[in-house]
Structures are given as C-alpha cells and as structure tokens.
C-alpha cells in the first residue's frame, strides 16, 4: 500500500522532472556551444560545482535566512489567528481593521524594506517584521474565509444543542477553516522565503540575500545562482513540510477534498 503510494507520487512527478531536466540540458548545451563567458551566464554544471565548493559559506548564510523565515512566519501565524478570531466575533472590529490590513498589502516591499532596516537595524528583527508583514494578510484572509465556509446546518445543529457562540466557534468554525488555513499556509510560505531574502538584500550581516548581493558585486553569477538554488530548495522543503503537518494534524482533509496539485 505504502510502496504503491510512493510509486504513484514518483510517477506523478515524472513530467515535472522531465521538463526541468530538458530545460537544464538545453541551458548546459547552449553554454558549451556558444562559448558565452561564464561571468555572464554560467552553465548549470558550473553552478552545481561552485555550490558544492562553497557549501560551507552557503550553509552559513542559509541559517539566518531560515531563522528569519521561520520566526517571521510564526509571528504572522499567531497574529493572523488572534486577529481572525477578533474579527470573527465582532463585525465592528472587522469593519475597523480590515481596511488597514488591506492597506498593509499595498506597501511596496522595495520601499519598505530599507526603511524597516533603517528603523530596526541590521539584526534579525527587521527581517522577522518584513516576513510577517508579507505573509500576515494571506493567512488572515484564509482563516476568515474558512470560518465563513462553515455549513449552515452544522451551526444550526450546534445551536439546537444549546452551544454558546464560543463553543460553536471552537467545535465548528475553527475546524471548518482548516482546509483554508493549509491552503493559505502553502501560498504564504513561498512568499516568506522571498521576503526574508529581500529584507537581507536591504541590509544584513549574513544571509542568502546578502550573499547574492556580494556575489553579484564580485561578478560571480555562478554563486548568485548557487544561492538561488539553495533558496528554491528551502522553499520547496517548507512547502512539503506543510503537507506533512496537514496530514498529521488534519488527516480527514485528504479524504474530503479531491483536488490536489
């Protein structure tokens, strides 16, 4: 059973793997045949080789990025959850706060990132804040919509049993929101890594963002791409982790929903 599932997954990943390898292969062949300078466009094989040679430096710069991502994301989850409860219980609060949340999404990161670094220094804090700023709103919307998706019948049933508003939230609205929550989680975790790198780009002692910036300034596109590779791997890792958490925390979602990417 388990073996079959694994094989099924592998089979489904096959088209994606084939497409990616053809692209890489074309890129490699182009670099070799055209004789393009490796300070302009390095071949994938060279990026891999350099990534391996510089693995210590890369790792050293990955840790702060991962830390900023995880802390920032956790902060955003806690805030999004607390505020989602507040606006679910009070329509007054919803009307007061929602426009502010939307406005927070219109801030251009390019302008905001250097300012946040200016205000909060080169340490971890501004990165956490920027990651939280970027991921907070999608999480809040996912939760709010999830609460709203609660079946009318289920709420009527609980009301007929004499359940209080708080019990109805706890027993029906919150679990109803879980599929939305995990969908939101997958979207915002991909934003989170990018936001952390962006924050580092605006100023940091260490991190993948600053590593990319330095590599670019030293005319080492191969190292820029090596760092890009690491950040993509990081995102994919976090993305898969959300599936694992979902399967552990809410195994029933798999059975109820048919759609899966």
């Amino acid at each position, binding site marked *: 059973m388990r073996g079959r599932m694994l094989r099924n997954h592998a089979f489904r990943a096959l088209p994606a793997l084939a497409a990616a390898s053809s692209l890489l292969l074309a890129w490699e062949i182009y670099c070799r045949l055209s004789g393009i300078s490796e300070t302009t466009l390095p071949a994938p094989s060279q990026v891999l080789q350099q990534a391996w040679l510089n693995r210590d430096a890369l790792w050293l710069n990955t840790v702060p990025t991962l830390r900023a991502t995880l802390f920032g994301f956790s902060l955003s989850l806690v805030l999004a959850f607390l505020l989602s409860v507040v606006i679910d219980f009070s329509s007054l609060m919803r009307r007061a706060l929602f426009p502010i949340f939307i406005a927070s999404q219109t801030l251009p990161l390019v302008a905001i990132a250097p300012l946040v670094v200016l205000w909060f220094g080169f340490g971890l804090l501004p990165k956490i804040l920027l990651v939280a700023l970027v991921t907070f709103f999608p999480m809040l919307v996912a939760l709010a919509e999830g609460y709203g998706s609660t079946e009318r019948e289920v709420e009527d049933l*609980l009301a007929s*049993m*004499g359940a209080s508003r708080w019990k109805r939230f706890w027993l029906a609205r919150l679990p109803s929101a879980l599929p939305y929550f995990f969908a939101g989680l997958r979207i915002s975790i991909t934003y989170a890594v990018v936001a952390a790198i962006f924050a580092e780009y605006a100023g940091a002692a260490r991190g993948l963002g600053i590593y990319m910036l330095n590599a670019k300034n030293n005319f080492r596109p191969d190292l820029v791409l090596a760092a890009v590779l690491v950040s993509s791997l990081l995102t994919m890792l976090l993305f898969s982790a959300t599936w694992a958490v979902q399967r552990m925390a809410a*195994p029933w979602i798999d059975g109820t929903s048919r759609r899966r990417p």
Partner: protein
Amino acid sequence: MTAPLLSLDRISLSYGEIDVLRDVSLDVMPGEFVSILGPSGAGKSTIFKLLTGAVAARSGEIRFAGRPLAPTDRPFAFMPQRDALMPWRRIIDNTTLGLEVQGLRRKQAHQRVRPLFEEFGLAGFEQHYPHALSGGMRQRAALLRTVVQDRPVLLIDEPFGALDALTRNQMQIWLEAMWLKHRWTIILITHDVREAVMLSDRIHLLSPRPARVEQTIAVPLPRPRFSHPTARAEAATIETSILDFLLSPQIQEQQGQLP
C-alpha cells in the same frame, strides 16, 4: 385521553415580506410518531427552526408538557435535513457531539454511545471518518447523534430524502423497528407520502406556503407495518387518498401552478 406533550397553537411566522407559517396548529402525544407532510418550500423545516429557537414566531404559542416553552428550554434533539456530520470528527466523536456540548467528558460520552453502535448498524466504524461511510450509514450515525442526547422529543427533517429507493426502504424498516423498541416521541418531516403512512401514527398535512395544517390523518395500522400481511395494502389505500387530496383542485389552486 392523555394530554399532548407538545402543541403549537396558531403559530404565524414570516421571513421579512414572505409569509411562511399562517396559523399553524398541531399537537404531538407522548410516545407518538408524527409526520409533517407538505410540498417543498411549504415551511416544514421552518417549524423545526422555530422549535429549536433558531427563529421566533410573530404570533401564537408553543406549549410543552402543559407549559409555554421558554427560550432556554431544550426538550428537542434535532437532526437537520442534510446529515451535518462533521468531516473532521470520527464517527464516534460525531455521535457524541451533543453530549460534549452538554459538558460531558469525551471518555464518558464514548462509554455512553459505544453500546449503541451495534444496534445502529455502525459497529466497527467508530474510528472512521464520515467520508468513508455510505449514505445510509451516515444517516444512521446522524440519528444516533440525535437519540443519545436523551431529549423528550426527536425532530427529524427528511432523513432519507437523499438515499436511493432500496436503502430508503431499508432505513424505514429499521427506523420503525427502533421506534417500536424505544418508543421515542418523534416528529418526522417528509414529502414522501408513503414514508409518512408507513411510519406514523398521525400525519399533519401542510398546505403550500403560507403553511397551515390542512388536515390531520390518523393511521391506525398494525405494526410492524412493513412485514404485516394486510398493513401494506391498507397503507396503499391511505396513500392514495392523501395523494388525491394533495392533487385536488382547491389545493392546486393555492399553489397557483401544477407541480
């Protein structure tokens, strides 16, 4: 003659501009199986919403056990039109929902429902999630969730409407057997005339919206009706007369159109 357990006295109710109930009066005896039969959209589910306190009447009175029903009284266990099982709860936890809301600990609640799984044809499915159950099993689970609340009256809204004909028949036979054993007081909403005749002691026939009780029909047939030699034939006669009544010109006229 005993006094009714529940009576609705000239209840009127409207949703904004729409008149849904107009002077609905009906009663239910203790231990009685009563059906409310009426066309779709008549206001049948609205009667249950009224009893469970989800909506309020504009006028009229509800009396339970001789006293006016207070808003905090909850003598009813309600089974909604769709089964409303929670996909995130295992079957056993779905069936204990009412007990948990009443404040029982999960473990005690489990102990209370577990012996009933056999009788409800759900043995072995305690730990399954609802999506793994057939339509008939889901309805039995929803019914189990209703009866374990241990309320004086069960309100069951079209429990078998979504099932295939064969399963629906099996469920009706099963429900009659369960009722004969436990003698719950049941109000069943249905728009299936045969179902009403085969299961109930009395049928309250509703007119199209705005609903009023057009006629109350006693069904004095021997039980269990599905296996009784003559009950089925007699039931068919009653069924025909009800259908004749529902299809009669003055009722049709009220509806304003042919169904």
